[in-house]
């Protein structure tokens, strides 16, 4: 397996607080990898470091062999490494289809693309992806009128529209109605299998992550605590201690 995303010895501090300390991990191409850890263990900070939200203090992040730590968020996104937000972010005053249209990949954008109108195929693709996440009936609604869970699904569909090679998902099931979670897991797996998108997922819901990921990393206090296949992690004493606060 060759890694599509490699994080090497990344350290990030805020003032005196060490949010990530010497974290190394790798995400193989085509895999679904999980990232868990108690609240405040530095999971989202690591995501932010990877996609260039803030500069890292030391270490390296490579995506398909390209060093990311000097690039800015939009450049990284155009390389095909995309993230979704824990606090779902969509374009509230625009309708769902418009949200999808503006999420087209922007790699080849020049000044002429500014004038581009969206051809029928784009709208069709947008609608089929909305159907994929179950939002087709809501496609003409303003995004801000959707419920929180629906917005989450919209954000996921927007990410798919962007045709990323790798997608970082920050708690995709948080705030989603429990009865819908199985459906979402299914969608995530299908996105991975059918569209070939590598997934790197932060998740608090153990049942979800055990079901979804083939390999799991566990962070605690900003440091990598353990990693391994789901069943191994599940029975790892250090992980259990970290979650129960015995650390």
């Amino acid at each position, binding site marked *: 397996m060759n890694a599509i995303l490699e994080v090497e010895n990344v350290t990030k501090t805020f003032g005196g607080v060490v949010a990530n300390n010497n974290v190394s991990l790798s995400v193989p191409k085509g895999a679904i990898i999980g990232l868990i850890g108690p609240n405040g263990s530095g999971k989202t900070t690591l995501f932010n470091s990877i996609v260039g939200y803030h500069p890292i203090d030391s270490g390296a992040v490579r995506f398909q062999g390209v060093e990311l730590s000097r690039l800015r968020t939009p450049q990284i996104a155009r390389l095909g490494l995309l993230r979704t937000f824990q606090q779902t972010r969509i374009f509230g005053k625009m309708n769902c289809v418009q949200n999808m249209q503006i999420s087209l990949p922007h790699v080849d954008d020049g000044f002429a693309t500014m004038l581009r109108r969206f051809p029928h195929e784009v709208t069709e693709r947008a609608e089929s992806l909305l159907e994929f996440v*179950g939002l087709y009936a809501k496609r003409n609604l303003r995004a801000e009128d959707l419920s929180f869970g629906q917005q989450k699904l919209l954000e996921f569909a927007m990410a798919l529209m962007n045709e990323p090679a790798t997608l970082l998902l920050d708690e995709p099931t948080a705030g989603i109605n429990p009865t819908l979670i199985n459906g979402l897991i299914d969608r995530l797996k299908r996105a991975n299998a059918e569209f070939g998108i590598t997934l790197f997922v932060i998740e608090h819901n153990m049942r979800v992550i055990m079901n979804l990921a083939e390999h799991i990393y566990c962070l605690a206090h900003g440091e990598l605590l353990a990693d391994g296949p789901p069943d191994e992690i599940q029975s790892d004493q250090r992980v259990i201690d970290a979650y129960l606060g015995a650390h």
Partner: protein
Amino acid sequence: MNGGGKIALYLGLAVAALLVPQVPFLQPYLIQFAFLWVMILFAMTWDVMGGQMGYNSFGNIVFFGVGMYATAVVQRDLYFTVEEYANVAGGEQAALTPAEYLTGLALGMGIGGMLAVLIAAVLGSGILGLRGHYFAICTLGLGIAAGELASGWDYIGAGSGLVTPLLPDALGERGPFFYYVFLVLAVITFLVLKRLYAGQFGLAINAIRDDEDKADALGLHATRYKTVAWCVSGFFLALAGGVFGNLVIFIDPTDVAFAGPTFGVWMVLMAILGGKGTLWGPVIGATVFHLTQEFFWTYLFGWQRVALGLLIVVVVVFFPLGIVGWLRERWPQRFGEMVDEDARRVQVSLEGER
């Protein structure tokens, strides 16, 4: 509205606008009508930034002033030296042939427009990095600083202002001439903006308005869009400024060119009154504002500026959606939008409810 009705409406408006100078009892008011087009230009160009992109600029007046001064200076320096011009402007006006006048005006507007684009691009690279109220207040400072600078620069007449050449008689009355020039300018601006909003540009700047961080995270070239938006806005404002200087003949640095407390505030107010972030809102807002101002404000005897402050407060606090925005909230279907009250409450079924 269906396609046929829309075309009929556009045609009707065009014919009405073209016929105004032919109506005898409106002829004394043609200058006021020319002002109306200027107001519409103000509101439309402000709305590109403030309404569609969410970058509330108090400094767009800078481009207006730059275009005005650039045009006037080109008109002056093309045919005169500064001293000569000062002499003829003081006594009998500089008499230009129609060809000279139009050449100067066109060339000046072209240079003014390009200068505005250049300034928007250069300043924008720094100022457009600011967000929210920092952007608003920074542009406010920019507008006033520009006026103060112009007041101290002798080459452009400093505090005593600059006089533009008079319209040669051969080109007809001032009223119809400037009416048509501003009409054409306003229509072109409207059509260009309409076209820009219809494509990716429109969606992109709307996305920047709604959540710029998200737009960044999707790989959108946000900085490029913001800069182009300001350049477009500045370009048309500069053209308008160039003609406006010729309409009012005398350019005062702070009362006409960089008139932040009047024009600079009006453009914001008119766009909000009509409905910011909509295509027709600024047009309607400017029309309503200008007509009420013309018909009603003369009876306020000097208190109209007090009333302006009051009007801003009332519109912003009680009517922030504006006329078109309010209509759209009220009858969303008419604007091709769908709103589903239930959608705010009910979770969607993942199994696709077709």
